[in-house]
Each structure stands twice: as C-alpha cells, then as structure tokens.
C-alpha cells in the first residue's frame, strides 16, 4: 500500500534524534544545523511551489521580510522568541497573500522573475532606510523564551530546540497537507490547468494558497535566521543572490520528499563552510561548481540518491514552459 506513511515516521525519528543530539553536538555543528533548519524551511516553501510547476527567484523577499519584521520588533522592546517568530512568519504571510493576487496570474519564468523583481524592491527600500542601518543592518539581541532568558551556549541550545520543534510541526504539517485534495492539486495544476478548471476548481486559487504558504515558511526561516545569527542586513537576507541560494538548496534536495529540503540545506551549509575554510579565495568557484555538478549529474537532487520517489520534474513542467502570462 503506497499510502502508508514512512515519511512522518522518518521525520519523527530524525526529530527525536536531533532533539537528543542538541545537548551533545559541538557549537559550530549546532549553529550550522540551526541555519540549515532555517534555510530548509524556505526551501520547503519552494518545494511546494515547485510541485505546482512554479519556481520563485525572489523568496529572499519573504525571508528578508520575516527577518526584518522580527528584528524590528526587538528594537521596540519585544524579545520573546515565540512572539518574534510568529510575527515574522505572519508578516511575510500577509505580504505573500497580497502579492499573490498579482503573481498567481503568472507561470513559468515570468512568475520566477516577477518574484525576483519584488525582492529587489524590498532590498532597495532597506538600503535606503538609514534608520534600519542601511547596508549595515543592525544586530538583534538574544531572545527570551516565555520569560526564560538563556545565556552563553544555552542561547543556541534553546534556540535549536525551539526551531527544531517548529520546523518539525511545519514539515509534518506540509507533508500531510500535500496528501489532501488541495495539496494534491499541486500535481493537477502543474500537469494541466485546463482540466483543473473543467473539473470545477480554480487553478489560480490553488497557486495562491501555495504561494501564501511558501511566504509563511520563508518568513519563518527568516525570523529564525535573524535570531540565530543575531544580525540582519540586506545583502545576506534580501539580495537576489540569497534567493538564488534557496533555489540552489531546492534543486540540491530534489522535490521528492519534504524532509530532503533540510538535508539539502545542510549539505549547502557544509559545502559553503568547507569551501570557505579550504579555499578562501575561490569558495564561489566551489559553490558554483558543485551546483553545476548536481544539476548535471543529480537531476532529481540528493533525494534520488535514496532511490525513492523518483519524479523527473524537468520533463513535465517544461511542457508549460512557453506559456505566456494569462492576462
């Protein structure tokens, strides 16, 4: 029976293992893990879009928006991680909901690029705003957790658990959602919008829902990142290159399984960390090279290594690649 759910089981095990490991892992590993969870969450949003046949080159928009929303709240005296992350997520979600009305009319490269354009507008606004430290950004004070204010290493440890719990909930949620009718319509919309319309449902509505969702998780990732790093700045949070990294991670992971995005994000962090450590002058070369290698030789991403759920997305969604914007 193909509907018995290995994924939830797998995720739960991974969740418990990491929860336990948190107290033992070296700080730098935990820190990389933390970033991987944050970036993985964004990639998760992109995965949902990708299954619908859409790719966004601008999700730094929601990542940055969530990060800055959370960070700005700390400026006015809010420090509770739960509140900050919730606010950041919500802010990004609302933005995605509004822009969604425009973007849901677009497909293929047009969708991807309009997202990028909007993200660059946010970038411009931030750089222009001296109150937010312009290109310097500003630092985010250590958050509290429902009154508990950790110090030193405990900060990261707590934040890691905090992040882990929420990413676990979100990820399992997404996985189950993808099995619902609405979630399943990803496939339907990607494969044949006309048929969806003539079955009596709006393809644009499907896309809008998924877009808002991807915005929410991107905002979540951003807020987490802001707290984890203790700093926000436009170049590493709202620039187009950041959006590129997210798509990179998605491709790295493949869209076979929701859990894969975190593995992809981890691999990305490790490649970058080690490239930076061993080739300080040519880390971009290594980053770009490995991306090319994966595109060429692992078309379905790392997940395909696990030999499951091969779905060569490339051939399918290229079918609608020449479709023009609807209006």
């Amino acid at each position, binding site marked *: 029976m193909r509907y018995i759910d290995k994924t939830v089981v797998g995720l739960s095990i991974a969740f418990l293992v990491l929860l336990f490991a948190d107290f033992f892992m070296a700080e730098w590993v935990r820190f990389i893990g933390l970033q991987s969870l944050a970036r993985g969450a964004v990639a998760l949003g992109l995965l949902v879009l990708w299954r619908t046949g859409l790719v966004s080159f601008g999700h730094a928009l929601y990542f940055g928006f969530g990060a800055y929303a959370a960070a700005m709240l700390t400026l006015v005296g809010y420090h509770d991680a739960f509140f900050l992350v919730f606010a950041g997520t919500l802010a990004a979600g609302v933005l995605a909901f509004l822009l969604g009305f425009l973007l849901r009319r677009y497909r293929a490269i047009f969708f991807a690029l309009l997202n990028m354009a*909007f993200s660059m507008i946010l970038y411009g606004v931030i750089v222009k705003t001296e109150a937010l430290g312009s290109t310097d950004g500003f630092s985010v004070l250590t958050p509290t957790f429902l009154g508990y204010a950790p110090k030193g290493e405990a900060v990261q440890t707590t934040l890691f658990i905090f992040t882990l719990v929420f990413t676990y909930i979100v990820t399992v949620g997404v996985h189950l959602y993808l099995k619902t009718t609405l979630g399943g319509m990803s496939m339907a919309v990607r494969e044949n919008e006309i048929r969806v319309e003539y079955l009596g449902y709006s393809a644009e509505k499907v896309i809008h829902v998924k877009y808002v969702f991807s915005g929410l998780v991107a905002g979540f990732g951003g807020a987490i990142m802001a707290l984890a790093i203790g700093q926000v700045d436009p170049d590493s949070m709202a620039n*187009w290159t950041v959006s590129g990294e997210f798509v990179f991670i998605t491709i790295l992971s493949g869209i076979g399984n929701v859990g894969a995005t975190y593995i992809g994000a981890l691999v990305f962090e490790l490649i970058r960390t080690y490239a930076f450590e061993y080739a300080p002058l040519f880390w971009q070369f290594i980053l770009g090279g490995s991306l090319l290698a994966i595109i060429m030789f692992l078309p379905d991403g790392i997940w395909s290594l696990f030999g499951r759920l091969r779905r060569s997305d490339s051939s399918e969604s290229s079918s609608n690649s020449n*479709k*023009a*914007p609807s209006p």
Partner: protein
Amino acid sequence: MQELIVILVDGLVFSSYLFMVSVGLTVIFGVMKILNVTHGAFYAFGAYMSATLIGAYYNTELPEFGGFLAIFAAAIIVGVFFGIVLERGLLRFLYHRDEHIIVLATFAMFLVLEDVLLMIWGTDPYYAYEPMALLGAVDIVELTFDVYSLTLIGLAVIVALGLWLGLTKTKWGKLLLAVIFDREISQAMGINVTVVFTVTFVVGSIMGALGGAYIAPTISVSPGIGVEVIILSFAVVVIGGMGSIPGAIIGALLVGISRAAAVHKFPEIELFVIYAIMALVLAIRPEGLFAPPQARKI
C-alpha cells in the same frame, strides 16, 4: 533651460549605458527564454579583456585611434569564446530541463566565472583611460562633457538599429522571429533551432561583453563589477518587457532619464528611482511595457 538640456544629455548617456549592458540579456531571453545570469560575467570579462588589450595596444607605437579596435576585439573574443563554450559545453545539455534549472545553471556559472576572473586578473584594478583621454571634451550649454561618454549614445543607436535591421530585414532575423514565436513549429518547419540557439547565444554574449568592453575606459576595472550589472540589466529588461528589444530601449530611456532628473532635482532618491519605476511598471503592466507576443499553448 540649461539644466533641462544637461538632464537630457546625462539621461541619454546613462540610458545608452543601460541599453548596452541589458541588450545582450534581452536578446538571449527573447529567443531562448533563458534568463542568462552569466551575463554579468560576460560584462566583467569584456571589461577586463578590453582593459588588457587597450593597455597592450598603447604600449605599441601603433596609431592612437586603433585603441578603439581593441575594445571591439575584446568584446568579440570574449563573446565568441564564452558564448560557444557555455552554449555548446553546458546549456545544450539542459534544454530539455526545466527552464528554472537553466537559470540556476547560469547562476552557478556566474559564481564560477567570478573566481576565474580573479584567477586570471587578480584583485588589482585595471585602467584603460587612454581612449577616453584621446577624445577629449566638448562644451554643451557651457558645461563640459567628455566626448567618449557621448559616443556611447552613438554606439547604442548603432547596436539598436543593427539588431532591428538584422531581425526584420535578414533571413536570419526572420528565422529568429519564427523561433521566438514558436520553437516546436519552427523545428517542424525544418529550421535548425540548434544553430539558431548557438548563434543567438554568441551574439548575446558579444553584446554583454561589448557593454563591459566599451565602459572599461571610463571606470576602474576591478572585482565585483559584474554583480551590479546583472540587477541593473535585469531591471531594465523587466521594465521594458522580457525579451523585447524595443522594450529594452524604452526601459533604458525611462530609467536613464528619470535617474538623471533625480540626480539634478532630488539626488537623495537616486538610489530608489530604478526600483520605483520597476515597482510601478510591475503593478500596472507586470509583463513589461513591451512584452513580445507569446504563442499561447494549452
């Protein structure tokens, strides 16, 4: 009055610059539906190559004006080389893949080339101001302008005309338009799309390189010049309508002149002009001012 004319001249110069750096991108997108992020690297390589050749040239005793040949030579060398290497060596293996994958591949290629640039030329900047010095300056409404920058306008016009004629008047151009309109059908009609793609990509690459090569004498050719160009050209292309050459022209003029006006009237908003226009256009006409006709398929 004087200010108005100055704004116009400054605007035209900057528009020409914008057009030159974005036309390559739009050509490639128009025909191949590929957003070529590597474009930024072409620009940078063009600039470095031209700086190197110009430097080499002026160490010889050859006539001074020959220096300009070095610029175009640089553009062609870089464009042809990278155009062919990238299209034949990488992209053609990806045409059957999801278009987003292709964009990301060009992004990856951009990262790689950024460092290749460092490996070849190092971090020290290169200068090639001789051609600019050579042409001297001229006064317009009692204000001195350097002739070189003004020639940029001429170059932009020539390139625009050339492309327009090439597309509408030549057999090749008609083939291109056919491919632009519908890849499959033109294939069915026996057009060799493979060749069309390679040629287009090379032309686009030369355009990108030419942008950098021609700008080189006016700037300090140093690391990182490619990155800015990507976003700049991207904005112009989005505003004008992706893949439309008239669009690129209009987009460049719109941004260029408004920016010049901002610099003279409200300098503090200069940074924002380009994003503001982009936002406006996207809100009103998201497919861009001159979106080319798309074959709607279901």
